[in-house]
């Protein structure tokens, strides 16, 4: 192979660290709680992408299962947050 695959994947992970930083800034800053939940949604999407990249870098296919489970947990968490936000304003 002419290029180093894992070095490129590590570079992509460094870029995803920047993405995580930007989303975390919005989560800390976010004027309303809706902003924080949107940032949380984005952070779990980034975590799914991270685990897919780690699966390539380490060659362990178990990390793709981690990505699958994270995407399921992400949906349940978002639905629960939305319900919480709606109930909080209704009552």
């Amino acid at each position, binding site marked *: 192979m002419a290029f180093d695959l894992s070095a490129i994947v590590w570079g992509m992970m460094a870029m995803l660290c920047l993405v995580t930083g930007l989303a975390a800034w*919005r989560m800390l800053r976010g004027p309303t709680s809706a902003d924080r939940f*949107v940032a949380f949604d984005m952070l779990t999407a*980034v975590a799914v992408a991270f685990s897919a990249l780690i699966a*390539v870098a380490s*060659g362990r296919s178990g990390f793709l299962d981690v990505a699958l489970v994270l995407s*399921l947990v992400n949906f349940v968490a*978002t639905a629960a947050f939305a319900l919480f936000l709606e109930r909080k304003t209704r009552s």
Partner: protein
Amino acid sequence: MTVLGLILMGAGVLFLLVAAIGLVRLPDALQRMHSATKAGTLGTALVILGAMLTGEVARPQSGLLAIIFLLVTLPLGAQLLGRATYVARTPLEGLEDDPLAEDEGSGLTRK
């Protein structure tokens, strides 16, 4: 095949970066959700697809399942969160005249 996978992963990471920039720069909660959901879903799905195509992973089938679940659940979650954002009276940019809030039958009591 490896090169194709790398290109897809790079494109996915770029989409995620654009989504994060939109998350920081856009003015209100629903616009931020627009950026995070659409570009974020596409970026994550592209990264997983690229990871499956590189051939480094021994058992890539669960990646396909993860992509299907992402494509089904992320827009659904964003729809729920968007509705909750509207109902919770989050201040929205450029929304002075809002006929939906005055409609008693809509069930979305904003005022």
